[in-house]
């Protein structure tokens, strides 16, 4: 069934993407297109990064229990995206990352965006959103020990993730609209997105505190009980 069923091909892809495709994209973007189309480059790089990461996970032995738990967390995040205004998606990804590991956080973020965009509309923003939420999860996974211990750090991470996510998506808005980066447009985008940025930051921090007990403690318990 699968095109990439061959192990050798998969291995080749794993090295070809970081060392071949990404530099080639950057060089191509810088030389072939006269007006440097940063959009194409950033789009290609985002897509390549996701594919690369997924190829890495494919190789790892995550175990069926962890896979099912990641699927459950992803589904919760997708449902959370239907709540008007306050979106717990970041909080749920961070929870998955802290308690199930960094890769699980990445998968939870990236896949919940992919699935919820079936309902909200796929677009050129999908790879960027996937990468954005994936990275929020991944970094939270690397910081799992301090984030587990300190409530203040958890709030700080939520606020920071909200602001960073919004600002990165604004860069993308400007690139899409303008082709190249323009500071004026970027400022306009940031200012017009300010209410959303505030909303992201507040809902991230709020949901992280609210969901720590129902989700975090339960994941911890499940992990102990079944040895995930």
């Amino acid at each position, binding site marked *: *069934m699968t095109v990439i069923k061959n192990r050798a091909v998969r291995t080749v892809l794993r090295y070809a993407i970081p060392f071949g495709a990404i530099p080639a994209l950057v060089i191509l973007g810088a030389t072939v297109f006269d007006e440097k189309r940063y959009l194409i480059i950033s789009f290609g790089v985002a897509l390549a990064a996701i594919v690369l990461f997924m190829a890495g996970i*494919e190789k790892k032995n995550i175990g069926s*229990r962890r896979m*099912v738990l990641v*699927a459950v967390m992803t589904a*919760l995040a997708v449902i959370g995206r239907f709540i008007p205004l306050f979106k717990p998606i970041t909080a749920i990804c961070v929870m998955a990352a802290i308690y199930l590991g960094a890769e699980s956080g990445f998968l939870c973020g990236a896949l919940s965006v992919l699935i919820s965009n079936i309902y909200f509309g796929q677009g050129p923003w999908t790879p960027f959103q996937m990468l954005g939420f994936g990275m929020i999860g991944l970094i939270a996974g690397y910081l799992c020990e301090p984030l587990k211990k300190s409530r203040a750090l958890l709030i700080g991470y939520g606020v920071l993730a909200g602001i960073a996510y919004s600002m990165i998506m604004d860069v993308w808005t400007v690139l899409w609209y303008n082709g190249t980066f323009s500071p004026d447009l970027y400022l306009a985008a940031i200012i017009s997105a300010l209410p959303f940025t505030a909303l992201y930051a507040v809902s991230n921090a709020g949901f992280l505190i609210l969901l720590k007990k129902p989700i975090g403690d*339960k994941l911890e318990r499940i992990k102990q009980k079944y040895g995930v």
Partner: protein
Amino acid sequence: MREFHEYNPITVAAYYLCATAVTMFTMNPVVIGISLFASVINYILYAKNGIKPHLFSLVLFVIMAAVNPLINHNGMTVLFYLNDRPITAEAAIYGVTAAGMTVAALYWLRLFTKAMTSDKLLYLFGRLSPKISLILSMAIRYTELLRIRWRKISDAQKALGLYDDGNLIDALKGRARVLSILITWALENGIITAESMDARGYGTGRRTSFRLFRFRMRDGLITAICAAATAIAVIGLNGADVVWYPSIKTTLFEPVSIMGYVGFGVLSILPIIINTKEAIRWRYLSCAN
């Protein structure tokens, strides 16, 4: 009768990605005009969603077209002054083109979303990575399952008299309790699912797909046409440039670029051609009986 959306998911996805990519990565007014026209016609014909998306697109178009001249004051032809800032024709035309590009890309992507249902996405991802595709398919399933369970739990809570919608605090507390139960249920149940998967030998053999999509000759043919049209469009449009500021200078109507427009035109009406051909054949065959 095989509609365009019934072709192999690889073909359909490749088609929409090509159309979207050419639209998104050119700032060529002619291409954007063709693209906008074709995508709207396609959308009206094959994604019958009522008037609402069109209204949204119109509002988006107007806002985006207006933003550029208000922020960007480059250009020689001054139309008028607003708060002592010049509003130029060049910036206005650029704004309209950029807005057209955005709206056209949006229409193509809406068509993509409409065509690529979750089973087709799974088919595509399953080729990339069986593990990711399994997590994806389980997550899609759980999304629906958790919604059903949410309703079950809250019904049960209501029957117990623990759920008072009249009082805001009580209602919120009730929701929090439902959420807590839902999460416990889902996680414990997930472990059972995993055990059951292991017991049935998950990971010992190759995974099969729920829906079978065969890659037939015509899928290959359409993919090839799509690739050829895209290649012609890209090659043809490489020379067609617009210098926007300080005054608009174009090389839009060289012979090579006209070839590019034809290539893109064929690409953008491909679904219409296929569906019309199939519809004619259908009618002809049903008349013949």
